[in-house]
């Protein structure tokens, strides 16, 4: 309850402050405010991918149903947030670079992430036995993770980037944004992560309830 209230208040404050506090950027104008929502959304979909991966490994090790639940719920949220990041990003791209889609490396990598999530759900819906579903999707999420390093190095090599380089952290690992904005940005990141954790917990309890209802007894979950 405290957690829920805290994250609700935090994210509302962040939303108000983003529109009120920082002056519009000199080059981009008002549209630069999307930075405070787009980047945290992209961050959350990477976070969700990791949560899903770790729980998949946990499932393969322990064979407990709860790990599979956590992995699926994280993947569902990751899918949602990558769609959000993709849409907010393409609107930004339309008004700054001229078209909705440019095959920029980060656009490409978020699209690949979306495809991985899509394939993950396609696999889950194609398998009918519960244990088999959990094992196969866990194996798939580990396999797909192995391609991430290749994509990170390869895609920028083929397609030139339009995203501002050194926008948040430069090559010397120093923050580039002026101080008050940086604080606001970090709070926005925190708020998005807290929302992710809250939704993740809720999703797990919904799944548990559905399972109890289906089995008709208080099964071990």
């Amino acid at each position, binding site marked *: 309850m405290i957690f829920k209230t805290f994250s609700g208040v935090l994210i509302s404050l962040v939303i108000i402050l983003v529109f009120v506090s920082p002056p519009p950027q000199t080059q981009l104008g008002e549209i630069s405010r999307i930075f405070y929502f787009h980047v945290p959304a992209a961050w959350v979909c990477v976070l969700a991918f990791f949560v899903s991966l770790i729980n998949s490994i946990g499932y*393969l090790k322990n064979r407990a149903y709860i790990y599979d639940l956590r992995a699926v719920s994280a993947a569902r949220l990751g899918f949602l947030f990558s769609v959000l990041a993709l849409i907010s990003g393409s609107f930004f791209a339309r008004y700054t670079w001229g078209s909705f889609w440019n095959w920029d490396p980060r656009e490409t990598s978020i699209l*690949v992430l979306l*495809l*991985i999530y*899509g*394939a993950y759900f*396609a*696999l889950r*819906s*194609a*398998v*009918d036995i519960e*244990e*088999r579903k959990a*094992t*196969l999707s866990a*194996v*798939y999420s*580990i*396999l*797909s993770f*192995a*391609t991430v390093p*290749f*994509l990170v190095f*390869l*895609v920028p090599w*083929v397609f030139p980037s339009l995203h501002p380089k050194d926008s948040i952290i430069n090559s010397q690992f120093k923050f580039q944004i002026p101080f008050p904005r940086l604080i606001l940005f970090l709070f926005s990141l925190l708020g998005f992560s807290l929302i992710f954790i809250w939704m993740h917990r809720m999703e797990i309890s919904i799944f548990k309830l559905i399972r109890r209802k289906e089995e008709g007894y208080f099964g071990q979950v």
Partner: protein
Amino acid sequence: MGTKSSTWIEQALSIFQKDIKSELRTRYALNAIVMFAVVTLAVVGFSVGQFSLSPKVSSSLFWVVIFFSSMSGLAQVFIKEEEAKTVNLLKLVASPSNIFLGKFFFNWALLLFLEIIIVPLFILLLGLNLENFWLFICVLVLGSLGLVCATTIIAAMVSKAHIKGALFAVLSFPILLPLLIVCIDGTYLSIQGKSFSEGVSDLKVLVSFSVVMLILSLLLFDLVWKE
């Protein structure tokens, strides 16, 4: 079939031989994969018509044809075992990693056979002009190695699924994307007639991708196979 005392290479090879034999009897995967490639190539050639393609476009089209035709046939290697209900027998006679290696070699041989047919056709129909032929051959062999390394375990996963359909292509594409990027780039370089030293970074990526995928598949195959 090897006994328990036979080495892993013997077991893998005997699985490979068994698959070649049964494939030569039915020619199911072979027909599917070759006909799919020829049909796609005909569609591409027909739609291109008299235009000459730029190196970038023709190298992309070449790998699109290879990708989709391999997606049509490579999953058969495990699906046929499930359909003929020979999986349990196979589990008894060989260890999972040897079965994986046997199937892996079989798929690679199948893909190389496909390429022997499709490359001359592609050169004839689309007027592909390979300036650096040996670089192209290297990209082709290593590219198909990487493709098979990544997709053999996916084929095993698909064979366990209730609804197979287009699942194999859907699952493979995100994993194969880095490989396809590199293969298209390598083919582009060889059409342009660039020297080996310029293409060597592509080949390095292909080798490392194959090694990573092969090791990961060997580690994870056990889990998929026992399902």
